[in-house]
């Protein structure tokens, strides 16, 4: 693996920055180089929030990417904005609970899951981004599932230990759902 970029995008409150932080911490724990950068612009107020996480074996240059190796889209505007950004052969994780639009690209791998519904089953709608992170890792092992779980534990335990179990359940739910789903030909 050289350098892999992932964009997480959704509404503010869907845990976009959190999911990116989990990936970044897990990558750091695995000894990789990583860079996490949020879109901290005015679009965060009510619109689409996003963050980019670059995981690499060597020092990372640009914090901005021309194309993303993976995009996690949790709401309709995110898919519209970032679908064109996925590299050919890249991965698109789509939250079917909120997104009705079809995927237009035929040169990317799409994982379409009811992330919000899966999050609710795990314990809380707001864990939607953690479900999506699990799905991402099932298809793109940027970090191990164990590392992601440990990163969640490290972050959540300090502030809200009561939601740790639900978080880990959401991560597993996304991972398992994406692992069993057949890849479209």
């Amino acid at each position, binding site marked *: 693996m050289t350098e892999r970029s992932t964009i997480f995008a959704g509404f503010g409150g869907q845990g976009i920055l959190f999911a990116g932080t989990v990936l970044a911490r897990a990558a750091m724990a695995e000894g990789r*180089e990583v*860079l996490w*950068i949020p879109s*901290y612009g005015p679009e965060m107020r009510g619109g689409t929030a996003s963050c980019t996480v670059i995981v690499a074996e060597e020092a*990372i*240059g640009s*914090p*901005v990417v021309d194309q993303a190796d993976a995009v996690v889209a949790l709401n309709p505007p995110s898919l519209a904005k970032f679908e064109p950004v996925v590299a050919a052969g890249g991965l698109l994780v789509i939250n079917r609970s909120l997104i009705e639009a079809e995927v237009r690209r035929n040169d990317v791998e799409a994982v379409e899951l009811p992330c919000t519904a899966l999050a609710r089953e795990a314990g809380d709608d707001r864990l939607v981004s953690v479900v999506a992170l699990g799905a991402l890792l099932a298809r793109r092992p940027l970090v191990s599932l164990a590392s992601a779980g440990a990163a969640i534990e490290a972050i959540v335990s300090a502030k809200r230990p009561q939601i740790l179990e639900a978080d880990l359940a959401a991560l597993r739910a996304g991972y398992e759902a994406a692992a069993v789903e057949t890849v479209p030909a």
Partner: protein
Amino acid sequence: MTTAAVAPATMPERVLWKGNEAIAEAAIQAGCDAYFGYPITPQAELLEWMARRMPELGRAFVQAESELGAINMALGAAATGKRVLVSSSSPGISLMAEAMSYMAGSEVPVVLVDVMRGGPGLGSIGPSQSDYLQLVKGHGHGDYRVPVLAPASIAEAMALVADAFELAERYRTPVAILADGALGQAMEPVVPEYREPPRRPSTWQADTARGRAPRVVKSLILRPEDLEAHNRDLQAKYRSIEEHEVRWAGESLDDPEILVVAYGTAARVARTAIARARAAGLRAGLLRPITLWPFPTLALRGLARHVRAVLVVELSAGQMLDDVRIAVEGLAPVAFHGRTGGMLPSPGDVVTELRRLWSITEPVNGRHRPQRGRRPVPTEPTLATGHGEQLDEGVAAEDLPALAEVWR
């Protein structure tokens, strides 16, 4: 193996840290006694970190009523010899210009962090490098300069904070750290290692007059003869800084056909673009100024002789560009690529510019190259290779007309 409370033998554990917070903690660990500020995006986390940490340590933290209040409090605190940090973002930095001039005039050390955002005016909160001219060319009124340090990573920003305090106190001058919103907001793993520069003995500080004659720290010098003498002293100090404190880093400089000059976040975009260009057979290299003033003029001039073109990349409409052209002196064509308003150039954009520039320039050997008269070239110190490396000699022979094709 049992693990007691001992330091690890291997690399210390890394922490994932946001740029603004890392800068704040580095300042604390560098011995910052007092912080003054006023909240503004994209620098707010720096102030928030200080708000929490400084009182814990029994040090001074004041969220002032405005940037004007903050910088003037800093002037007062720093005049007593305390180690003082101030931070803001572009519009707030503009408000601080007057007091910065006073501090330069009265030779008061302070460290000012500017996490730049899009301008002019209130602009946007997006990352930008459009305060270059403001800080590098003096900031406030009067004949003065401040050393300006430009980190390109969070780890480097942490190291430069300690260096900034040291420079400020060694030369009794304000020092600016020029970062941008992307660096302030991004997170990267860093090793939490810090440095606290040694304190200098009290020789000028208005700390106490007990047992000695009172000292005065001021910038008002009404007699023109005296003020001119003061200005001469200041200029001598600035020449000394120019001679000793130039810092830059280079990458892929063995054989570049095109030299990219960029700092901070723009340099990181350029680094990725250069790697991509090289993979496609276009040999580009990077000169990354770490001190924007003093600018690595001689290093750049030495390199410019051997490249077919120079490309400047900035998050601005072209501000460092002026200093690059001054350094290059027409020895090579200078082109520019920049984005403004909070937009970032992408690596792909820069690769496109490199290709375009390559296609419209000639190899060095086939180029009619202007030469300048011989004159003494002082030694250029560098960060990357240690101090005192001689970079290139002044080109001999008679003056020839400057190169015709120098692009904006």
